[in-house]
C-alpha cells in the first residue's frame, strides 16, 4: 500500500504553487515565479513516477490482477446516508498512467514556458494558472467519486478559460475563452444530469459502488435502472449517454468540437498542455473510468460513443487537410486522434465484449500525449521564429531550426503510424480492436489514418521544405533561434518519449479489469494501415515538397466541397445562429421585454389606476354644502334600506 501522503502531495504541490503564485506572485516572486512553479511540479513528477513504478511493479498487483486502491478518502459533503461527495484518490492502472502523463507533459510545458513566456507582463499569473490547471487535472484523474470528478472537471474548464484568455486584451482570445467555457459548460449540463440519473439509480456517488451496482445484473439497482425508461430508452442508457455528452464536450467530439480550434488563441505551450495532451482527453478518461457501465450496462450508449468518435475522427481529418493556420491544423488532428480513442472505447460495445479497445484507447492516449505535445511545442518554436501562424508564411525552416525539424518529423511519423514509432503500435491496436468488432468503423478509421498521414506531412513539408529561401534575414542570430536549452530540452525529451513509448507492453499494464490482455495482431494486419500512411505521405510530398500550384488546382476543382470543408462544414455558423438568433432574440429579449412591460407594467398600472381613480372621484368633494347634506341623507337612507329590507 502506498503512503497516502505522498500521493496526496502530487495534486497538492501544484495547488500550493497556484496559491503561492496567485497571492504573492506579483509582489514577491516576480520573475522567479516560473522557477517556483516548475520546481514544485518537478517534485510532483518525481513522486508521480515513483508512485507509477510502485503501482505497476509493486503493490498494485495482487495475484496477477491490478487492484483499485483508494489510499486517500474523506467525506466532503454528505447529503444523505448513501449520497455523499467524497474527496478521494483512486489508484488503478489508468489513473496512475494519467498522473504520469499529466505531470510529465506539464513539467515539459513548464520548462518550455520558462523561456517561451519570458518577459511577459503577467508572467507569475501565467504560472499560477498553469499550476491551477495541473492541480485540477490531477485531481480529475485521481477522483474516486463521480461528483469529485465533476468538481475538478469544472475547475479544469475554468483554468482552461483563464489560460485561453491569457492575452485578455486580444478580443479574439477573449471570445475564444468564452466560447470554450460556454460550450463545455453546455456539455457539462449533460454530465451533471447524467450524474444525477446514475446516482439516483445506483444510490451512490462512489465510482466503485456505482460501477459494481450498475453492472451486476442481480443487483436491485441494475434492475430498476434498466427497467425505468423514458422515451423508450432505459434510464441507464440515458445516464450513460448524458455523461458521455459531458465527455464529448471536453474532448471536442463532434458536434461539440467548435471551441477547440479557437482555443488555439492561448499561448502555444498552453495549447500543448491543455488542448492537446491532457484536458481534451478527459472525456476519454471519463468514459474509460465508467467503462463497465457503458460496456455492460448500456451497449447503445457505447455505440453512440463509437460513432461519435468515428465521425469526429474522420471530419476532423478532412478539415485538417484544408486549414492553413498551423495550430488549427494541429487542433483538428488532436480532435481526430481523440476520435480514435473514443471509437476504440466504443467498439467494445459491439458483439462479444472484450477489453482490447479499452487498452488500445488508453495506449493511444498515452502515446498521443507525447507526440502531440511535441508537435505543439515545435509549433511554438516555429511561431516564435516566424511570428505567424500561417503555413504559407513559412517554408524551408529545416536548416534554421534543426532540432525542431527532427523532433517535428518524428512526431509526424508517429502520428501517421509509421513503425517503429509509438503511434504505430497504439493506432494499430485501435484498428485491430475496431476490425474485430465492427467493419464500418474499421474502414472509416483506416481511411482516416491515411488522411492523417497526408495532412501531417502537408504541414511538415510546407513548414520545413517548400519555398526554400524565405526568412534568410533572421538567419543571423542562430543560437537564440530555438529559444535556448530551456525550449529545446522538452522537445528532445518528448521526442524520445514519442519514439520509445510504443514499446511499453501496455496490454499487461493497463486493462479494464486489471488482468493482462493480449491483443497483438498478426504482422500482416499492419500492412494496410502503414501502406496507407506512406501513401498519404507521398501525396503530401508530391503536393507540397516543392513550391507549386498543384494543391490549389485540386482545391479549385473541388471548390464547393473544399469551401465547405475549409469552413469546417459551417458548424460554427450553425451554433452562432442558434445562440444569437434563437437564445438571445427569441428567448432572452422577450423575457426582458416581458419583465419590463408586463410584470413591471402591472405594478405601475396599479399605482397609476389608484391615482387616476382619486383624480376622477374628486368631484364628490364638490365644496357644495348642500350636496354634502344630500350625500348625508342618501347615505343614511341607503343604510336604512339595506339593513331593513336586505339583511334581516
Amino acid at each position: 500500500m502506498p503512503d497516502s501522503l505522498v500521493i496526496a502531495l502530487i495534486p497538492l504541490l501544484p495547488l500550493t504553487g497556484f496559491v503561492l503564485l496567485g497571492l504573492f506572485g506579483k509582489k514577491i516572486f516576480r520573475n522567479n515565479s516560473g522557477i517556483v512553479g516548475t520546481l514544485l511540479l518537478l517534485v510532483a513528477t518525481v513522486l508521480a513516477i515513483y508512485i507509477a513504478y510502485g503501482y505497476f511493479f509493486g503493490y498494485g498487483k495482487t495475484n496477477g490482477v491490478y487492484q483499485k486502491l483508494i489510499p486517500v478518502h474523506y467525506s466532503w459533503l454528505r447529503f444523505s446516508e448513501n449520497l455523499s461527495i467524497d474527496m478521494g484518490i483512486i489508484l488503478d492502472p489508468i489513473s496512475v498512467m494519467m498522473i504520469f502523463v499529466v505531470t510529465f507533459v506539464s513539467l515539459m510545458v513548464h520548462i518550455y514556458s520558462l523561456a517561451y513566456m519570458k518577459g511577459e507582463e503577467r508572467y507569475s499569473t501565467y504560472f499560477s494558472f498553469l499550476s491551477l490547471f495541473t492541480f485540477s487535472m490531477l485531481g480529475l484523474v485521481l477522483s474516486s467519486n463521480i461528483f469529485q470528478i465533476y468538481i475538478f472537471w469544472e475547475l479544469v474548464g475554468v483554468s482552461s478559460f483563464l489560460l485561453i484568455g491569457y492575452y485578455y486584451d486580444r478580443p479574439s482570445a477573449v471570445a475564444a475563452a468564452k466560447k470554450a467555457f460556454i460550450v463545455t459548460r453546455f456539455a457539462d449540463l449533460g454530465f451533471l444530469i447524467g450524474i444525477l440519473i446514475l446516482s439516483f439509480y445506483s444510490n451512490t456517488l462512489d465510482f466503485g459502488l456505482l460501477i459494481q451496482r450498475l453492472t451486476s445484473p442481480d443487483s436491485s439497482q441494475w434492475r430498476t435502472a434498466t427497467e425505468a425508461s423514458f422515451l423508450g430508452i432505459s434510464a441507464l442508457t440515458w445516464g450513460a449517454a448524458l455523461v458521455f455528452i459531458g465527455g464529448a464536450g471536453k474532448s471536442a467530439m463532434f458536434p461539440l468540437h467548435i471551441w477547440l480550434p479557437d482555443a488555439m488563441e492561448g499561448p502555444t505551450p498552453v495549447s500543448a498542455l491543455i488542448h492537446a495532451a491532457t484536458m481534451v482527453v478527459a472525456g476519454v478518461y471519463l468514459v474509460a473510468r465508467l467503462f463497465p457501465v457503458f460496456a455492460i450496462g448500456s451497449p447503445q450508449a457505447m455505440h453512440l460513443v463509437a460513432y461519435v468518435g468515428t465521425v469526429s475522427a474522420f471530419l476532423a481529418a478532412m478539415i485538417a487537410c484544408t486549414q492553413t493556420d498551423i495550430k488549427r491544423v494541429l487542433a483538428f488532428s488532436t480532435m481526430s486522434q481523440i476520435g480514435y480513442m473514443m471509437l476504440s472505447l466504443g467498439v467494445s460495445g459491439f458483439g462479444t465484449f472484450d477489453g482490447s479497445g479499452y487498452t488500445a484507447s488508453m495506449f493511444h492516449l498515452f502515446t498521443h500525449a507525447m507526440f502531440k505535445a511535441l508537435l505543439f511545442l515545435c509549433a511554438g518554436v516555429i511561431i516564435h521564429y516566424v511570428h505567424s501562424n500561417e503555413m504559407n508564411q513559412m517554408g524551408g525552416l529545416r536548416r534554421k531550426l534543426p532540432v525542431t525539424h527532427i523532433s517535428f518529423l518524428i512526431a509526424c511519423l508517429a502520428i501517421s503510424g509509421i513503425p517503429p514509432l509509438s503511434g504505430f503500435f497504439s493506432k494499430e491496436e485501435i484498428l485491430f480492436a475496431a476490425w474485430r468488432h465492427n467493419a464500418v468503423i474499421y474502414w472509416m478509421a483506416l481511411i482516416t489514418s491515411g488522411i492523417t498521414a497526408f495532412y501531417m506531412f502537408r504541414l511538415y513539408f510546407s513548414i520545413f521544405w517548400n519555398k526554400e529561401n524565405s526568412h534568410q534575414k533572421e538567419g543571423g542570430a542562430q543560437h537564440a533561434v530555438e529559444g535556448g536549452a530551456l525550449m529545446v530540452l522538452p522537445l528532445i525529451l518528448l521526442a524520445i518519449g514519442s519514439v520509445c513509448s510504443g514499446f511499453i507492453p501496455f496490454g499487461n499494464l493497463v486493462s479494464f479489469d486489471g488482468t493482462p490482455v493480449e491483443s497483438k495482431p498478426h504482422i500482416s494486419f499492419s500492412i494496410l494501415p502503414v501502406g496507407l500512411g506512406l501513401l498519404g505521405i507521398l501525396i503530401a510530398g508530391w503536393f507540397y515538397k516543392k513550391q507549386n500550384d498543384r494543391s490549389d488546382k485540386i482545391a479549385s476543382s473541388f471548390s464547393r466541397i473544399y469551401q465547405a470543408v475549409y469552413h469546417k462544414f459551417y458548424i460554427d455558423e450553425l451554433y452562432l445562429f442558434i445562440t444569437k438568433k434563437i437564445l438571445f432574440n427569441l428567448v432572452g429579449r422577450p423575457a426582458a421585454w416581458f419583465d419590463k412591460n408586463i410584470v413591471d407594467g402591472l405594478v405601475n398600472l396599479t399605482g397609476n389606476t389608484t391615482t387616476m381613480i382619486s383624480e376622477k372621484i374628486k368631484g364628490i368633494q364638490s365644496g357644495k354644502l348642500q350636496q354634502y347634506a344630500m350625500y348625508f341623507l342618501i347615505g343614511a337612507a341607503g343604510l336604512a334600506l339595506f339593513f331593513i329590507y336586505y339583511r334581516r
Partner: protein
Amino acid sequence: MNLSVLLLIPLLTAIAILLAPRNVQPRWIALVGSFIQLVFAFILLHLFYSEKAGNDAASMVFIRQYSWLTAWNINYEIGVDGISVAMILLTAFIVIAGVLVSWNVQQRVKEFYFLLIFLGLGAYGFFISLNLFILFFFLEIAVIPKYLLIGIWGSGKKEYSANKLALMLMGGSALVLVGLLGLYFSSGGERTFSLMQLARLHIPVGIQKIFFPLLFTGFGVFTALFPFHTWVPDGHSSAPTAGSMFLAGISMKLGSYGCLRVAVYLLPDAAKEYAPVIIVLSSIAILYGAFATMMQRDLKYMNAYSSVSHCGFILLGIGMLTKTAIVGAVMQMISHGLMTALFFAVIGMIYERTHTRIVSEMGGLMKVMPFVMTVFFIAGFCSLGLPGLSGFVAEITIFIGSWEHSGLFYRVATVAACMSIVVTAVYILRAIAQVAMGPVKNQQYLQLKDAGWNEKLAAIILIIGIIAIGVAPSWLNHLVSPGAEVIMQKITNK
C-alpha cells in the same frame, strides 16, 4: 447565553452613532460595532456547537422567554437553531462589509451609518425571534431604512425605485400579517404567536390551505418570488452600494427564511398541497431571471436579475420539501447572500471609479484595477457555480435534493433549473469579458486607482466566507441539517 446581546450591540452602536460628537467619525463607530458583532457571531457559532453537543434533541437552543404583552399572549421569545445561526453569521459578514464599502460616503454620514446598523438590527432580530409577532415586528422594522437608504443616497430613478420597493414589501408584509393573525386565531383555545407552541399543535388542513398562500406569497415578495420580483431590479440598481448589499444579501433572505420557518414549518400539509405551484413558479423564476439577465446592459440590473434567478433556487429547494433540498436552500441563502453582496461591492467600486455601470462602456479594466477585477472574477465564478466557491455547493445540494423525487414533473423542474447554469455561464462570462478583458476602451480609465484598504478588506471578508463554504462545505452542512431535519419531521408526519 442570552441572544438579546445580538440586538443590544447594534442598538448601542446605532445610538453611539447618533450621539457621536463632531470630531468622532461615525464610520469608525460603525466599523467597531459591526466588528464586535462579527466576533460575537463567531462566539455564538462556537457556543452553539458546544450546546448542541450537550443536547442534540432540542430543536432550538438558547431559548429565552419574557412575557411582553399578556393581554394578547405575546411574548418576547428568542432562540436559535443551526439555520438561524448560519443566517446570523451571514448578516454579520455583510454588515461589516457594507460598512467598509461605504467608507467614503460624503453626505449625511451619521444618518447613513445609523440606518445601516439599524437594518442589521432588524435582520438579527428577525432571525432570532421565536414569536411570530416579534418576527413580524422585525420584518417590518427593516422596510423604512431601506426606503431612506435608496431614496437619499441612491442613484438613478431612486424615488421611483424606493417607493416601489417600500410599497411592494409592505404589501408582502400585509399578506404576512393577515396570515399571522389567521394562525393566531386558529391556534386553539389559548391563542398564541409562539412558534414552538404553534409547531406543536396540528392546525386543520382546511385552515392551513387558507393561510399558507398568504404567508408564502407575503414572504415570497421579499425573496423575489415570481411574479412579485419586480421591485428587485429597480431597488437594487438604485440603492447605494451598501444598500444593495443589504437588500440582496440579507433582506431577500428574510423572506426565504420566513417562507421556510413560518409558512412551511407551521403549515406543512398545505405546503405539500401547494408544493407544485411553488416549484413551477420558482423554476420559471430561475430560467426567466437568467434569460432576462442576459439582456441587461447595466451591471446592477444584471446582478439584480441574476438574484431573481438565484433566489428562485432557494424557493425551488424549499418547494421540493426534501431534507437535502431544504439544506441546499439554506446553503443557497448563505451563498447567494455572500456572493451577491460581493458582486454589488465590486460594482460599487467600479462605479465609483468609472462613473458608469453600462457594460459596453467599460473594457480591459483588468489592466487598470487588477484587484477589483480579480474579485469580480471570483464573484462571477461563484455565481455561475464554480466548484470551490459557495455557489456550487448550494446548487448541487439543491439538485440532489430535488432529484430525490422520482416524478417526471419534478425531474423536468430540476432539469430546467440545471439549464440555468449554462445561461448563467453565458451572461457572467459576457460581463466578465466585456468589463475586465478586451482592450481598454476609455483612455482616462488608465489613470484610475485600484481598491483602497477598506474595499480590499470588505472584499476579502466576503471572499473568505465564500471560499470557506466552497472548499469545506461540511461544517455548514452539519450546522444546517438538524434544523432542516426538524422541519422535515413536521412535514413527513401523518
